[in-house]
């Protein structure tokens, strides 16, 4: 019996050791979320990406829109089937790094390196464009994100020396700018993504400040989200880029530098973390954006792996 126990112990240790050894690349090891599938892959073909940097999910039909570094906007069905591709009108200066879809299913693309915002319908037909380069009121350097409040006002974040958020009327007339006082608590170092919730609170990822900031629609800084990190997880964001809200009113943040997606209560309590850094089927690297789909579905832009990871969470 003693010998049997020894063999049992050896087998137990061997199994544990093997799991520990391979755990770095074992597929399926996710945290508290069910990985469903991914789509994309490197290439310039339809359904493929070359360093995708922007993703948004349509609140109307659940379609997923992705923009990569070839300046192509691609539309996918909620189950990841490629439907349509169109190109941004100009690409010489650079490519867009953000995308937003409103309740009318209009696609707003902050054309980052052309200092403007372009609107498309879901089939890629250009509807409108506004913005010009400059440091003045209503002008942009590098616009990164668009959001619209319940009254229809448009908010555009930007960086490049102009790190601020500008507010426009639905007719694209400049109203005001905020978060632009470098000495103020509400100044953001490269605001990357804006999100406006049902209470008209503006949430913004202060990507190089490594925090999530809140403002009201008058531009008043309501404070940075005080995050309660679980003891067993790395605390603090590292370049939070993407931001979205799920059906349950929780915030989804793509924590790019930490290669993970963080789900938060609006109180700041971390509700879940998903993602392990790597190339394996269920791992992610450098997520630039995240989008909430219907129900529990979450689309994570796995930028360095040139794909979109789809999880149920």
């Amino acid at each position: 019996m003693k010998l049997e126990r020894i063999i049992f112990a050896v087998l137990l240790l061997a199994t544990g050791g093997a799991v520990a050894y391979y755990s770095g690349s074992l597929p399926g090891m996710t945290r508290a979320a069910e990985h469903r599938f991914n789509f994309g892959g490197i290439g310039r073909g339809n359904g493929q990406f070359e360093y995708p940097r922007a993703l948004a999910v349509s609140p109307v039909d659940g379609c997923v829109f992705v923009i990569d570094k070839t300046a192509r906007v691609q539309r996918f069905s909620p189950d990841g089937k490629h439907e349509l591709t169109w190109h941004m009108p100009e690409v010489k200066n650079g490519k867009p790094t953000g995308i937003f879809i409103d309740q009318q299913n209009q696609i707003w693309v902050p054309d980052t390196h052309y200092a403007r915002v372009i609107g498309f319908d879901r089939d890629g037909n250009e509807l409108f464009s506004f913005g010009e380069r400059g440091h003045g009121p209503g002008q942009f350097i590098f616009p990164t994100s668009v959001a619209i409040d319940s009254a229809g006002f448009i908010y555009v974040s930007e960086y490049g020396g102009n790190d601020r958020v500008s507010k426009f009327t639905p007719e694209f007339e400049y109203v005001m700018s905020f978060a632009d006082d470098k000495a103020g608590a509400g100044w953001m170092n490269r605001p990357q993504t804006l999100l406006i919730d049902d209470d008209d609170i503006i949430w913004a990822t202060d990507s190089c400040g490594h925090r999530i900031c809140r403002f009201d629609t008058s531009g008043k800084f309501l404070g940075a989200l005080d995050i309660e990190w679980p003891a067993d997880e790395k605390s603090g964001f590292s370049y939070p880029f993407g931001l979205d809200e799920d059906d349950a009113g929780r915030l989804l943040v793509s924590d790019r530098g930490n290669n993970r997606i963080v789900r938060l209560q609006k109180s700041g309590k971390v509700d879940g973390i998903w993602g392990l850094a790597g190339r394996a089927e269920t791992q992610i690297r450098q997520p630039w954006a995240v989008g909430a789909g219907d129900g529990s579905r979450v689309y994570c832009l796995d930028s360095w792996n040139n794909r979109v990871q789809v999880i149920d969470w």
Partner: protein
Amino acid sequence: MSELFTLSRFDRPWALLILGLAVLMWLMARRSLPGLGPVRGKLAAFMRFSVLALLVLALAGTHKILKNDDLNVMYLADFSKSVPLDLRRETENFIVESSRSMKENDKATLLTFDGRTNIEQLPSNKGASGTGIHRDPPFPDGQRPDQTNISQAIRMAIACMPPDMNNRMVIISDGNQNVGDAVTEARSAKTNKLPIDVVPLPIQHGDEVVFEQMKVPPYANKHEQITLRPILRSDRATTGEIRIYRRIGDRQEELIDLVPDNERFGQRVQLNPGRNPFLLTLPIIEARSHEFRAEFIPDDPKADVIGENNVVRGFTNVEGPPTVLFLGQADAEREDSYLVEALKREKIRVVWKAKESVTISTAALQDYSAVILSNIAAENFSADEQRSLATYVRDLGGGLVMTGGDQGFGAGGWQGSPVEEVMPIRFDVDSVRQIPRGALAIVMHSCEMPNGNKWGVETAVAALKTLSRLDYFGVVGWGFNGFHWEVKMQQASDKDGIIRKIRNMQNADMFDFQTPMNMAYKALMATNASVRHMIIISDGDPSAPTAGLINRMRGAKITCSTISIFPHGSMEIGTLKKIANQTGGKYYSLSKPGDEKQLPKIFIKEARIVRRPLLREEPFVPQLNFQSDVLTGIGGPFPQLRGYVVTTPRKAMGVEIPLRTNKGDPLLAHWQCETGRAVAFTSGWWEHWGQDWTEWPSYSKLWAQSVRWCMKQGTAANFDVRTVVEGDNVRMIIESMEDSAGKVVAGEDGGSGFGDFLQFDGRVIAPNGEAKPVRVTQIGPGQYEAVFKADQKGTWLITAGASGGPNEKPVQIRTGVTMAYSPEFRDLTSNEALLREVADVSGGRVLSMDEVGKAAIFQHNLPPTISREPIWDFLLKLAIFTFLLDVAVRRIALDPLQWLLRARARLASLAGGRGRGERSVETLRDLRGARDRVRQDRTTQAGPVGKPAAGPSRGAVPAPPPSAKTKFDAGNVSKPTGDLASAMGADQAADKPKAPPPKKKEADDGPQESTTARLLKSKRRAREETDGNKDE
């Protein structure tokens, strides 16, 4: 795709030996498992063996075998200039249209090639548009359209092919390769089971005039009349004009007036179909190299389709008196004049030139016997120019003198350059030396430019090479794990190791300067360097650093230079400019295509900042170390010098160091470097360090002797040299002649009357400066030949040297040949034979660009591909699951008989037909029968163990009650043997007078009772109930 499993392919078959443990396990099982019963015992043994087997198979690296008949077609499209534009468009359409026939899982890959290969599309599935090619024609142009390199394209395609698919290559080309060997690569493709289909493009130009060649004498003397022999080939009779341009030395090219009495400059000519040779006589007006360019201009443009092949060049070497090229900086002419004048006093012909005003090339250097680099930094020379200088010494027999100063040797960024390789000293410093160190940190964000990672690597390597082994070096970048050190800040003692790390660098999109600059700042501060410098290369769009960090850097005297590469607009450069201005660094802007070529130069210049510690500025008296040739007639004492650049002697044969400093460092060193010679003087900078020397009487003598020692040898006069261009091949023919006194010039054997059996060491220097050896063989009495392939446009230099020439004098022959246009424009029809051979060798087909050809591209007629996929992860997961089952089988006892009975009862109750009482009676009868059988079996198995169970009735000591900790075990069940009533019985209870009677039911279920006791009680209650039912 179908899957096959096999256990016959293992990565580590030795791991299967671990299966030997199974024997040990079997022996263990024999001892330990019988207690589980026959079925569970066998099952447990099987489970454990399975766990072992699965683990071993995972460790052994078992593979799954996949059989795949999906097809990946790799299109290789020839976009070189020999393919007319209309055929190129046809090719593009053919590619797009033929990819429509691909199946759902098939893939299409697109590579275009000329002299280089571009991957236009990685393997991709069919898109929504129904084609596998996701680019719309026209496809982008290539990088080297004046060449065709089919072999490189094949190699690249082999590297791209997915291993788990059937792959087919389709080459669409005119077959006119002029670089590489496609057939050899086709054989390689065959070994990779990769058939190459070919689609020959039917090239047939219309009427064409080609400048085949122009024969120019390789040597001439000043004032001599030379004859140029241009040869034109025409498809039909036509007329036109030949114009001749001449470039003397490094001057601008000029048009020669061939008919002075006419308004025209060119010579009118009438061409007949076929070859048309002409003769033109021109005077040689200067003792410098002459390069001629002939151009044909047809009267009727329709008579000539390709313009590029209407030009031809020739090269004549005109030997003059030895001349020395003195290269300095524009603002240092006065400084350099001390040495220039000293050489002139010694009758040496010197030409001083500011480097900024001249471009160095191997051809231009041919006019000079030696070159002097006077306190001039490496960044003033492009990489090509540095290579040319090295080639000039090593391969062309030239002389090179370098003098020091604050911009010479290692302090001038020459370390690691090709020039250092030809010098008699190393510009690095031994690690044991105690000199102040420098530290350089690079913040690398080069990915935003075309070929960003490549340039990132090149610049970092260039900077590293410039540093000494004592200096510190580090590179910060952004990777998927955030900001990190691509190369940790470390001493550059293991440069090869650091270069390997740099080559693995994959810097990515950076968006913040604060973090990487802060990392670099901290690392620089952690070094004991006396000079600390930072370089940032970026497109400028990351966020700016904080004022606090900038202030800390200024406080620590850390300078930061910034290089803006291809900013997205004008706005980004503000951040980079500001960082440079605030920290005392320099700002550079590269915004136009091609500007990136300046990057290594900028990095060398910037890295030089940390090289200042190499200057030792203190007065010293040079020490005579060795009386070499250059010091003939010059003795000490030597005047004082006030500084020098620290260097290290090269440990090589032939290195001589006649003068050293007071610290033992080299001051004057020279050596023979292959065919040329080089001299290094680590001091200089005459107004700062060497004022005493310029007033020294032996100053001019020493320098004259040094320069004369390294001057290039003159060309052998008693050899005639000719070059003949035949297609891509160049033939150099050397003929030895009798000497001028009419004396028979004989080889060592004195046999033939000519210089026979000479062992020439031949070298060819390509237009890009690359030198390669060429074999010179004797083909007749006193006649030698060398043949090489000239596959680049430009001037090719050829040298041949032999030690034992006529009269035992060394022979040095130099000549050149110019390829005016690429061989790409010489072929006027397609080379279908080559393409057919490629298809033949690789097992491919010859297709055409018609409907049949289109349909054949994605034809699934290749044998399926068998590929392997490791399944260790699956086996490991299965082993974990099986292990859990194994534990479950051992620890959880299930009675299959009970299950059977319950199932049967359940079925019977569902079936109906009998009353409850009948079923109960029958069930009970079955149960009793089963129970009796089990009891009998266990009693038999238990044997004597059962006997003490009746003991208490005979007054024996009662068995202790089972411990509460005892788990349920089959062994425990077998102990209450014999009559069940007596085993559980009241008699026993009666024999336990001290045991307190149960007060209430809850007490029976109390924690102090063992599981066995509770089971026994349950059985007793069941029996009482059964008996009651029976009574009813």
